[in-house]
């Protein structure tokens, strides 16, 4: 086995061969899911989903992934719980740790919070998005979608478009696609591009037509509502005019280019509704399907690693 991680905190620590191992296993799980069958890799295991930030899709996907493999899944809505009573993140982690879960799935509004938590518990931790830092399972499901659509995950031209600065999805994707030796272009208004972008090993475009020229994959990002007015862009309609994906802009990409979006979409802001629904171009529904399979694979591999190494370390290791 070439997957040696104890946690899935980000794409950054992963080796390309680990990414391939995970995607190969996820392919198997796609077949399992399509056959309406269940696995038992996580039977008798307990999985706790801790979401400190609202989420419907990611949480549901993790929940379903756990259930398909036989895990006992518990969801904790952290917004409404002890955090409001002043408990620190570490105390919450220690409390949960005392319940001996096997898997902890965490989303948190602050970058690095999931890393911090992982240092304090002795189960496997999966990062379901931390601040603007990373969202590794999203990048992995995007990678699986691309690999299945294009037949490979290397030497592709891929454009990531929109609000890069505030996007953990973009960061994880830049890292993953870079590791797998693709050419990544970032497209967006300069106010939504992070500082130091020139050092990322990517091409940067503020003209979308130029940025999409001859790409194999177009990844659109969601523009958060609170960023639409005045602060970062002048208006929704100007953004759509310059950076919204429509048929005309897409015509600059390769004729067989696929269109992706991590959801939830703002139709008419970053993407035209017809493009999103075009079954010949859009793989947005496949992304959702791959999400469950990738999360099954990730949790399966992490639990296998835990079983392989006898866990004798203390809580505060």
């Amino acid at each position, binding site marked *: 086995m070439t997957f040696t991680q104890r946690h899935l905190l980000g794409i*950054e620590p992963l080796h390309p061969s680990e990414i391939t191992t995970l995607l190969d296993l996820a392919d198997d799980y796609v077949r399992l899911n399509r056959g309406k069958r269940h696995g038992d890799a996580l039977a008798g295991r307990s999985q706790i989903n801790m979401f400190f930030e609202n989420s419907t899709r990611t949480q549901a996907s993790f929940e379903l992934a756990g259930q398909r493999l036989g895990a006992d899944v518990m969801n904790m809505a952290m917004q409404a719980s002890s955090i409001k009573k002043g408990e*620190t*993140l*570490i105390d919450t982690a220690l409390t949960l740790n005392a319940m001996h879960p096997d898997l902890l799935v965490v989303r*948190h509004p*602050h*970058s*690095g*919070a999931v*890393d*911090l938590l992982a240092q304090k518990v002795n189960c496997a931790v999966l990062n379901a998005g*931390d*601040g*603007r*830092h*990373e969202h590794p399972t999203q990048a992995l499901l995007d990678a699986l979608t691309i690999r299945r659509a294009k037949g490979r995950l290397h030497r592709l031209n891929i454009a990531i478009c929109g609000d890069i*600065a505030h996007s*953990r999805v973009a*960061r994880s994707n830049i890292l993953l696609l870079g590791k797998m030796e693709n050419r990544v272009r970032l497209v967006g208004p300069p106010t939504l591009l*992070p*500082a*130091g*972008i020139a*050092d*990322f090993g990517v091409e940067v475009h503020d003209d979308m037509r130029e940025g999409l020229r001859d790409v194999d994959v177009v990844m659109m990002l969601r523009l958060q509502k609170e960023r639409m007015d005045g602060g970062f862009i002048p208006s929704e309609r100007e953004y759509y005019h310059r950076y919204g994906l429509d048929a005309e802009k897409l015509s600059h990409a390769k004729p067989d280019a696929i269109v992706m979006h991590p959801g939830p979409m703002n139709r008419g802001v970053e993407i035209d509704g017809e493009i999103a629904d075009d079954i010949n171009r859009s793989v947005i529904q496949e992304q959702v399907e791959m999400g469950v399979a990738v999360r099954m694979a990730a949790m399966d591999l992490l639990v296998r690693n835990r079983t392989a190494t006898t866990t004798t370390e203390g809580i505060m290791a």
Partner: protein
Amino acid sequence: MTDLLLTHARLIDPEADSDAPGWLHIRDGVIAASGNGAAPQGIEQVLDCRGKCLAPGIVDIGVKVCEPGERHKESYASAGRAAAAGGVTTMITRPDTTQAIDSPESLEFVARRAQADASVHVRHMAALTKGRQGREMAEIGFLLDAGAVAFSDCDAVTRNTKVLSRALTYARSLDALVMLHPQEPVLSDGAVATSGKFASLRGLPAVSAMAERMGLDRDIALIEMTGVRAHFDQITTARALPALQRAKRNGLDVTAGISIHHLTLNEMDVADYRTFFKVKPPLRAEDDRQAMIEALRDGLIDVICSMHTPQDEESKRLPFEEAAAGAVALETLLPAALRLYHAEALTLPQLFRALSLAPARRLGLAAGRLAAGAPADLVLFDAHAPFVLDRFKLHSKSKNTPFDGARMQGRVLATFVAGARVYGEP
């Protein structure tokens, strides 16, 4: 009274810019004489320094002692012990305690606490505006009478330029020294890192290094307008240096400092969100650090300080954005500064010019020198002794040092305050 002869010392004299073997005679708490030739005879108490370095004790501008309000983080007793162990003979305390030191009554309280508990000299700064809120000026006159050596709102940068200009005008009329924190407050709001590749990869809210220059530009204009005497607590970016140089050339009465952390660490040290490396302003790029060392050598930056900021474990064991900023540094200031000496970036007299002489001069204190008549505030140290820092062995109540586990070189052997030994074996 004391009558002590220190022989076979390596005398580090920043005033004379010399580093030479010699002896030093202490009598009645002051330096009676020093020299390079034969030591005077007939003095009863003699200490053989065995060739170790003897330098004027450190004058540290900007130490936070957490009294009143958070004595569990640092008290005058614990800070005093840490200072003595670090060769700091004068602490200049900051007024940014939980309850700001902004009235003569609160200043008298901390002065009394320092007098009772600290074994080194302590002088106090007071807030420039009430509650450090940037709305109404503090009672600068009364506070001067009560012993304030300088006025500062520390990292609470006054957003209202009108308020600041009046406070500076008033301070000027009393010839008071103000300490300013150069930072554009709106741009840097919420930032915990310096913008660039590192902060972007880590997904941390960041501010451009340019915000320091913007703050500096505004403050220099106000200094020119009001004629106030001013000291910038920390200049940390290369982009700010030309403005500082112009201000000095134009004859404004300005000096500038830098914290030891910005001289010895860079933004990459934060690594995987290590909150002990969260300081204010945030750590900078390596290019900036190099530029700061050069500015220090040229004398453009005058002062090195510890920016000692105690934080308990609870304030640091949080996600990076939420964690408190600041690091303890009284005890690590000298060994960390010696890294610059060992790297051959600065000579020992240059280091002690910035650690002792320049800060003392800026505050009008007689310390910081080895000349006859100067107070016998001295540090005896072995510049080469290697050790690995264990944060739990620090004297500070708070253990938030970024140097935990770091290999360091240079140990304090003894610290003298007014001729009396406050640290080290007798």
